[in-house]
C-alpha cells in the first residue's frame, strides 16, 4: 500500500528488474557487488524537494533530484545542473547561471531554464522550507533555454552558496500533478510530491516504505558517468546499538551515524573501516550579555554582562578534557565558533588557551562575585553528539570557581524555541554553516534581533557598529574588502567573547572493507562517489 512506484518508465532492461528482485531477498544473504546497503538513524521525512530543509531528507533527495551547484568533500562548489555561474558583468545584483544541456528528468522530459525558474519560485513560495535561503531573491527569469538570471534585491556576492540544497523539479510534471507548491498542512491533504518523484538525479526510486526501506536504482538516462553503485537499499535504524550490530552482522554495508562510543571498537574490528572527517558544525556556549538582570540567577544583576566573568568562564573551559573524555577524541577543539571550512576562518582564532582556574577565580572576585553565583544552564539532549554530556562536564568545570550551573537538559523541541524567545540565560547551541561563509554566523548569531537577522542571537549581543559591518558584507562585491570586514567583525566578536566556542564536530562513517566513501562536511554523502576495491 505504501509502496511507491516512480513515474519512470518501468519497461527497462531485465538487469534492473533483477536488481529490484534482489532488493527483496533477505539482507542476510551476500549483497550484489553493485548494491550498497545503507543505514542511518532516520529516514527522509518526505520526497517533496522543497518541503523539509532537514539533513537526512536532503541526503536521500540528492540521489533523486539535483541542484544547480553541489558541494565537494573539501567544501568547495561543484558544477551540478549549472555548468557555469557568475555575477552579471553590468549588474552586480544579477547572478547568471549557464545550464547543463542534454539533461533529462526521469520521465523523459528535458531539463531547461523554465524548470529552473519554476523550481526557484517553488522553493521561494509560502509553504516552502527553503524560502529563508532565497529571501533576497527578487525575480528569477529565463534568458534562453539554457541561461537563467537570478535578480537579487541587492548585490549578493555569495548567493550561489545558498543553492547547494535547492533541488530542481520539472515544471510540466509538477503542474500535471498539482504540486506547484510544497505541502500545505492546513489544506489537510497529502501532496502528490511527498511520495512520487521526478528528478534529474543519478538514481530513481524503485520502491519506498517510509521508515522501513527505500530502494533506488541507477537512472540510465543520467548525464553523468555510470556510478559503481547501481543500487541503493536505504534502511533507517534508529537505535544506535542495533545499527552497529547490523553492520557487524553483515546486514548493511554502510552506517552513516556511528555512535561516538563505538568508533574505536569498530576501527579494531576486522572487516570494518571507519572514515572520519570534520563536519561543518560548531558547538558553543552562549550567555545573555546584555540584559539588566538574569531570569534564573541568584544575584540582582547580570554577571554575564561583565567582561571579567566571560573571561573567567572561558578560563574554566577545558576543551581538551571534553575532547578526550566526553567525545573520545572525536572532536576538533576550537577557540572560535566557526568550522575551518568557513570563509573567514584563521588558524590564529582557532587556537585556544589551557584552563587556568586560579586566574578565573580571581577574575570572578574582581567582577564582584567572590562566592560565585548560580544560574540555570540549558542544554539539548537529542540534537548534537553527546550534547548533554558536554554540558555536564562544563557544569563541573565552572563549579570549580564557584559558579553553580543548574543543568536543565531538554529536547531540542523545547530548547530551540526557548533560545529564540530569549527565555534562557546560559545555553549550549550548535551551528552548521551551509553557505560556508562567516556571514551566515553573523546574520543569525551576532546581529541584533530584527526582522530577518539575529533569529538565534540568544546572547542578545547588540553592537550598532558590528551590525552595520554585518549589513555591509551582504552587498560588498569586492571580495578582498569584504574579507577584511569579516576579519574585523570576528576580531570584535572574539574580543567581546560573545560566544564561548567548544569544538567542531567530527563525522564518522563506518563501512565494510572494500568500500570507499569520504566523509562529507555537510554530512551529505553521495553514493555516486562510492568506489569498490
Amino acid at each position, binding site marked *: *500500500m505504501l509502496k511507491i512506484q516512480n513515474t519512470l518508465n518501468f519497461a527497462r532492461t531485465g538487469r534492473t528488474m533483477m536488481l529490484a528482485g534482489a532488493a527483496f531477498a533477505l539482507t542476510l544473504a551476500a549483497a550484489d557487488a553493485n548494491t550498497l546497503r545503507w543505514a542511518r538513524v532516520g529516514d527522509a521525512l518526505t520526497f517533496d524537494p522543497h518541503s523539509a530543509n532537514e539533513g537526512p531528507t536532503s541526503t536521500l533527495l540528492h540521489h533523486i533530484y539535483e541542484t544547480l551547484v553541489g558541494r565537494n568533500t573539501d567544501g568547495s562548489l561543484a558544477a551540478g545542473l549549472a555548468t557555469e555561474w557568475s555575477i552579471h558583468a553590468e549588474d552586480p545584483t544579477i547572478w547568471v547561471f549557464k545550464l547543463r544541456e542534454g539533461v533529462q528528468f526521469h520521465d523523459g522530459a528535458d531539463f531547461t531554464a523554465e524548470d529552473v525558474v519554476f523550481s526557484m519560485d517553488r522553493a521561494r513560495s509560502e509553504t516552502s522550507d527553503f524560502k529563508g535561503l532565497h529571501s533576497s531573491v527578487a525575480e528569477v527569469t529565463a534568458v534562453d533555454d539554457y541561461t537563467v538570471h537570478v535578480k537579487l534585491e541587492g548585490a549578493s556576492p555569495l548567493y550561489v552558496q545558498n543553492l547547494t540544497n535547492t533541488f530542481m523539479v520539472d515544471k510540466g510534471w509538477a503542474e500535471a500533478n498539482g504540486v506547484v507548491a510544497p*505541502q500545505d498542512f492546513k489544506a489537510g491533504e497529502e501532496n502528490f510530491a511527498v511520495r512520487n518523484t521526478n528528478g534529474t538525479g543519478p538514481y530513481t526510486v524503485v520502491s519506498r516504505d517510509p521508515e522501513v526501506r527505500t530502494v533506488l536504482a541507477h537512472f540510465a538516462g543520467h548525464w553523468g558517468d555510470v556510478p559503481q553503485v547501481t543500487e541503493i537499499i536505504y534502511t533507517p535504524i534508529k537505535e544506535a*546499538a542495533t545499527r552497529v550490530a*547490523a553492520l557487524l552482522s553483515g546486514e548493511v554495508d554502510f552506517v552513516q551515524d556511528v555512535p561516538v562510543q563505538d568508533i574505536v571498537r569498530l576501527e579494531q574490528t576486522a572487516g570494518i573501516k571507519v572514515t572520519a572527517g570534520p563536519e561543518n558544525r560548531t558547538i558553543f556556549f552562549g550567555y545573555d550579555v546584555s540584559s539588566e538582570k538574569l531570569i534564573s540567577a541568584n544575584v540582582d544583576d547580570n554577571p554575564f554582562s561583565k567582561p571579567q566573568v566571560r573571561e573567567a568562564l572561558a578560563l574554566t573551559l577545558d576543551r581538551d578534557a571534553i575532547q578526550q573524555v566526553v567525545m573520545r577524541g572525536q572532536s576538533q577543539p576550537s577557540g572560535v565558533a566557526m568550522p575551518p571550512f568557513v570563509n573567514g576562518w584563521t588558524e590564529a582564532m582557532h587556537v585556544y588557551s589551557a584552563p587556568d582556574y586560579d586566574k578565573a577565580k580571581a577574575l570572578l572576585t574582581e567582577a564582584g562575585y567572590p562566592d560565585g553565583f548560580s544560574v540555570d544552564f540549558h542544554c539539548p539532549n537529542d540534537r548534537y553528539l553527546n550534547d548533554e554530556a558536554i554540558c555536564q562536564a562544563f557544569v563541573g568545570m565552572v563549579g570549580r570557581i564557584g559558579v553553580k550551573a543548574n543543568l536543565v537538559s531538554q529536547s531540542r523541541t523545547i530548547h530551540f*524555541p526557548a533560545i*529564540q524567545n530569549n527565555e534562557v540565560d546560559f545555553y549550549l547551541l550548535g551551528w552548521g554553516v551551509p553557505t560556508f561563509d562567516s556571514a551566515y554566523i553573523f546574520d543569525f548569531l551576532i546581529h541584533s534581533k530584527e526582522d530577518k537577522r539575529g533569529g538565534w542571537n540568544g546572547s542578545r549581543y547588540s553592537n550598532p557598529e558590528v551590525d552595520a559591518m554585518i549589513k555591509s558584507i551582504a552587498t560588498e562585491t569586492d571580495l578582498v574588502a569584504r574579507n577584511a570586514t569579516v576579519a574585523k567583525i570576528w576580531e570584535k566578536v572574539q574580543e567581546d567573547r560573545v560566544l564561548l566556542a567548544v569544538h567542531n564536530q567530527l563525522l564518522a562513517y563506518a563501512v565494510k572493507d572494500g568500500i570507499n566513501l569520504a566523509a562529507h562536511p555537510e554530512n551529505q554523502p553521495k553514493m555516486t562517489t562510492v568506489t569498490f576495491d
Partner: protein
Amino acid sequence: MIAYILRRLAQSVLVMLVVALVSFSLFRFVGDPVATLMGQEATVADREALRERLGLNEPVYMQFADFAMRAVQGDFGISYRLQQPVAELILSRLPATLELAFISGIIAFVFGVGFGVYTALNRTGWLSNVIMTTSLIGVSLPTFLIGILLIWVFAVELQWLPSFGRGETVDVGSWRTGLLTPSGRASLVLPAITLGLYQMTLIMRLVRAEMLEVLRTDYIKFARARGLTNRAVNFGHALKNTLVPVITITGLQLGSIIAFAIITETVFQWPGVGALFINSVQFVDVPVMAAYLMMIALVFVVINLIVDLLYYAVDPRLRVDRAVARH
C-alpha cells in the same frame, strides 16, 4: 445483559474522550512542533505564520474540539513529520505491531503454562530451579537490555537471525504480513521473545502458584484416591481449574503487549505503531501522537469490555465475590 453492554459502551466513549483531552493538554509540554518543522534559517515571522497555519495559536480547548470533531469522522489530519494522512499511516503500521504482539502472546502463554505446570509438579528438580532462576532474569532485566543481548548473541555472533526490521513482507489485501515468508518469520523470532519474556514469566509464576494451591485441594486428593492416573489428575483436573485466572490475565496482558511494544520495536527497528509513536514524540508530531493514544485507549477499552463480557458468560461465580467463591 443488553443494558449492561450499553452502559459499558457509554463509559467507554467517556474514557476515550478523557484520554483525548488529557493527551491534548499534555502535548503543550512536549515542545514546539514548529521548532522541528522549519529549517534554522526561518525568521520569527515565518514561524509565526506556520503556527497560525497549523492552528497552534488557538486555545487548547478549541484545538481539542477541532480534533475531536474531525476524529469522530475518522480524519486525524496530516502527520507533521511524514506529511501523510495519519489514519493511513497508523493502519499501515498496525499489522506489524499486531503480528508481533500476537506471536509473543502465544509464546508467553504456551511456554508460561508449560514451565508453570512443570515447576509446580517437580518442585525440587534441578531443571525447575534452573527455570525459576532464569525467570527471575526475565522479570528483572529491562526489555531494552534483553533485546540488545539477543541481537548480540543471535545476530552478530552466531548470525542465525536478522538483527533488525521485518524481513520480506507480503501484502494480503491491505494487511502487510511477514508471516508468509521465511525471512519474515526469522525476523519475528528475536523481537517476539524479547517482548514476550516478561509476560511468560508472569504467566509461569501465576500457573505455578495456582497449581500448587489446586494440588492441595480435597478433590485432587479424592481423584488420586480413586486411582486416576497422574496425567488425568494433573492435566484433566488440576490444570483445567487453574486456567480461569490465567486466561483473564493473559487477555489483559495482550493489551499491554500492544501498548508497550514501543521499546521492543525501537530496539529491533520493527516498523510498527510503537516505533512510529516514539519518532513522533521526538518531532512533536501532534496529529500522530493524538491518534496513537486514542488507538491505545480503544484497545484497552475493547479488551476490558470483552473480558467483562466473558466474566458474564463463562463464570457465574465471578458475579459474586470472586475470592470467597474460590476458597
